C-alpha cells in the first residue's frame, strides 16, 4: 500500500498529481464550455480517476479515498482547475460520501460508498423547494412512516443534474408541528428510479438544463435509507460543507473570464484605449487581490485551523468580480454584444455572452450574496439584531 499523501511535501505532491492528470485527462474534455457536464459526457475521466484511486480526495483511505488534508486538497483543486479538467458530477464524492462517513450506518457505508466510486450510483442533492430557498428550514416535502417505509410527497427544485442521476439525498419534513422549524427534518437516500418520481429539467438563461425539478408522488423509501436520526436531519444537512466552503470563493471563474477578456481586448485593439486599460487594470487588481485574500484563508487551513463565517467575504467578492468582468466583455464587444454566438478573436472564439449569462448564477446559488451579507453582519461584525 502506498504511503500517506499528507507526508509528501506539497510541491512534490503537486507535481505528481499534475503530471498524471495532464497525461490522463482527455484533451477533448479540457476547458469545456459547459460548467456542469452530464455524467455520460465525462464518464471516461470519472472512471480513470476511480481506477487510479484519485476520485475521492477527502475520503479516508479506508473507504477508497485519498485521505488528503485540507492543504493537500487545495492543491488537488488548484491543479485540476489550472489544467482545465471538467467538473464531474460530484455530489456523490463531495457530499454523500462525507455525509455517510460521518452519520451513516456501517451497512450504508458498505453499500453506497463503493457504488459512488464505481459510478453505478450518480447522486444529486434535494434541498431547495419552490418556497424554501434562502429560507431552507421552511421546506415542506413530507415523509410519513408507514411500517418500515417512508412515503414521500412533495417537490424539490434547483436540483442540479437530477436528470443524469439515479439517486438523490433528500431533506424531508418528518414532523410537522415542532416550534423550531429546524426540528422535524430528516435526511433520506432515495432511489430516483422508484415509482412516483418525476424529474423535469429546467432550461437556464444559457439555454442549457443543468438543474431540475423533482416531484415525489407517494414514493416509498425503506426506513433503512434514513441517515442519522429521524427529525434531526438539519444538523446532518448543514454539516456536509466543512473546509470546502473556501472553494465557493475560489478565483477560478473570474480568472478564466479575465483571460478571455484580455484576449478579446487584444483582438479588438481595446488596449490602445487608455480608458479601457484603466478599467481593465481595476479588474486585474481585483483578481490579484482576490488571490491574496484567498491565500489568507488557505493559510488557516494549511495550519490545520478551521474556517469561520468570515470566509463568505471570498464568495461575495469572487462572484461579483466575475459579473463585472463579463459585463466589461460586453462593453468591449461593442455592436457584437448583441450576439449570443461566440466572438471570433484571432484564431480563437470567445464565449462572451455565455460567460456573461453564466456569471448571473453564482451570486445566487450556494446562498445568495444578500444572505451571505446578513450572516457576516451578525456572525462577524456582531451588529445589533
Amino acid at each position, binding site marked *: 500500500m502506498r504511503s500517506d499523501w499528507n507526508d509528501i511535501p506539497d510541491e512534490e505532491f503537486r507535481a505528481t498529481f499534475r503530471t498524471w492528470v495532464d497525461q490522463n485527462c482527455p484533451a477533448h474534455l479540457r476547458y469545456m464550455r459547459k460548467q456542469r457536464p452530464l455524467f455520460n459526457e465525462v464518464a471516461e475521466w470519472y472512471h480513470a480517476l476511480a481506477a487510479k484511486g484519485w476520485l475521492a480526495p477527502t475520503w479516508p483511505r479506508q473507504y477508497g479515498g485519498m485521505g488528503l488534508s485540507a492543504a493537500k486538497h487545495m492543491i488537488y483543486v488548484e491543479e485540476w482547475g489550472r489544467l482545465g479538467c471538467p467538473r464531474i458530477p460530484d455530489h456523490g464524492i463531495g457530499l454523500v460520501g462525507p455525509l455517510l462517513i460521518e452519520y451513516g450506518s456501517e451497512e450504508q457505508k458498505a453499500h453506497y460508498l463503493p457504488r459512488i466510486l464505481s459510478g453505478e450510483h450518480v447522486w444529486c442533492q434535494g434541498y431547495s423547494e419552490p418556497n424554501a430557498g434562502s429560507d431552507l428550514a421552511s421546506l415542506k416535502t413530507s415523509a410519513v412512516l408507514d411500517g418500515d417505509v417512508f412515503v414521500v410527497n412533495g417537490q424539490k427544485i434547483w436540483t442540479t443534474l437530477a436528470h443524469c442521476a439515479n439517486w438523490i439525498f433528500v431533506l424531508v419534513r418528518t414532523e410537522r408541528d415542532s416550534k423550531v422549524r429546524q426540528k422535524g427534518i430528516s435526511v433520506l437516500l432515495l432511489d430516483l428510479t422508484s415509482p412516483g418520481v418525476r424529474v423535469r429539467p429546467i432550461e437556464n438563461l444559457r439555454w442549457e438544463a443543468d438543474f431540475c425539478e423533482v416531484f415525489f408522488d407517494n414514493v416509498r423509501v425503506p426506513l433503512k435509507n434514513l441517515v442519522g436520526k429521524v427529525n434531526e436531519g438539519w444538523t446532518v444537512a448543514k454539516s456536509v460543507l466543512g473546509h470546502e466552503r473556501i472553494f465557493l470563493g475560489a478565483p477560478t471563474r473570474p480568472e478564466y473570464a479575465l483571460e478571455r477578456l484580455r484576449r478579446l481586448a487584444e483582438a479588438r485593439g481595446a488596449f490602445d484605449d487608455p480608458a479601457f486599460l484603466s478599467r481593465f487594470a481595476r479588474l486585474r487588481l481585483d483578481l490579484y487581490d482576490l488571490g491574496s485574500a484567498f491565500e489568507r484563508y488557505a493559510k488557516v487551513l494549511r495550519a490545520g485551523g478551521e474556517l469561520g463565517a468570515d470566509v463568505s467575504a471570498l464568495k461575495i467578492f469572487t462572484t461579483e468580480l466575475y459579473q463585472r468582468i463579463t459585463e466589461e466583455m460586453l462593453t468591449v464587444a461593442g455592436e457584437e454584444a*448583441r450576439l449570443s454566438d461566440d466572438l471570433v478573436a484571432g484564431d480563437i472564439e470567445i464565449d462572451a455572452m455565455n460567460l456573461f449569462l453564466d456569471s448571473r448564477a453564482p451570486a445566487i446559488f450556494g446562498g445568495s450574496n444578500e444572505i451571505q451579507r446578513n450572516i457576516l453582519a451578525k456572525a462577524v461584525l456582531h451588529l445589533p439584531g
Partner: protein
Amino acid sequence: MPKLMLDDPDGTLVMLRDSVNGFAARFPGPKALRDRRGRGGAMDPQIWSAMAEAGWIGLLLPEDCGGAGLGLREQAVLSEALGRALIAEPTGTASVFAATLLGGASSGAERSRLAAGMASGEIVAVPAWTSGAKPIVARAVNGSIALSGETRFVEAARSATDFLVVAQDADGVTLLSVAADAAAVAISERAGVDGAAIATVSFSNCAVPTERVLSRANRSEDLLRKAILHTRLALAAELTGVASKALELAIAYTSDRVQFGKPIGSFQAIQHRLVDMWIEGEFAAAAVVNAVDALQSDDEDAAQLAVLAAKARAGEAAFSICRRAVHLHGAMGYTDECDIGLYLKRAINLNATLGQPEQLRLEFVERESGLSRGRTYG
C-alpha cells in the same frame, strides 16, 4: 413606474399606449420572442403585418407618401410601449431608420412604392449600413449601378424584401434600394442574444437599376445623420420601456416572494436597491423626454446632444435595471422560463445597437467642447 411624461392634449398618446396594450394581449411579446428562436431568428410575418395594420410601421413617413404624418413624440411613446410589452420586432431599424431615409428621399416611383409597401406591411425595407465600417462602394456600369462591399449587424435580413443601401460613390453618399432576392446579395446570419438573427449582408458587384436611387450626395448625408438621430431616440424610448417593465416585474416578484416569513421586498437592502433602480428608470424617461423636446426645436446641436444623452442613459439604465431584476428573481431569474431574462437580453441588444453608453458619452463631450467638429456620423 417610470414613463415618458409628455403633453397629450388630444389624447393621441393615450390611444397609442392603449392600442399597444391591446396588441400585446393578442401577440404576447415574451411568447413571440421565444417562438422566434424556434424559427432561427426570422420575423413573424403575421406580427409585422398586424403592426403595419395598426399604423405603426413607417409612423414617421410624411403624409405625401402615405404616412400618418405623426412625429417623434408619437414614435417615442410607441417605442416605449413596445419595449414594455417586449414586442421585439426590428422597429428601430425597419421602421424608424427606414422611414426617416424614405421620408427625406427624392420624390419618385421607387420612394412611393417602398413607402406604400412599408405602411401596408407588404414591403420590409431594411437599412443596410454599418456605423464606422468600410462603406459599400457604388460604381456606374453600363447604365446601372454596381454595388460592392458588406454591411454588418443587419437585423431581419432574411425577412427583408428590400435593402436600403447607403453607399459611397464618386460624389459622396448615395442612397438606393436593392431587391433582397437579387443574385449578388449574400446573407450570413449569426444568433442574436434575444433570438433575432443578426446578419452580414454582402454585395458582390451587385447590379442595381438607376431607378432605384432614392437620394444623392449631400442630401443623403443629412438623411443618414437624421436617420441615426431618430433611431437612437426610438431605441432610447424602447429601452426606457424595457427598463420600466423589468422594474415592475422585480417589484411584483419581491413583493410576492416570501422567505423567513416576510416578502423579500420588505427587506431594507432590497428596498433601497429597487429605489435606485427606479431612480435610474426615472432619469432615463426624463432624458428621452428632453430629447423629444430638443428635436422639436430648431437647434440641431442641442438635439444631437440630447439624443446622445438619452440613448446613453436609457441603455445604461435598462442594462443595469434588468441585470439587478434578474438577480432579485433569485434562482427563478436564472431560468429561461421566467420572462425577466428575456428583458435582460432585449436590453443588451438595444443597448448595443448604434452605440453603447461609453461611446455615446464620449461623443457628447467631444461635441459639446467642440473638440471634433469634423465628425458627422455615429
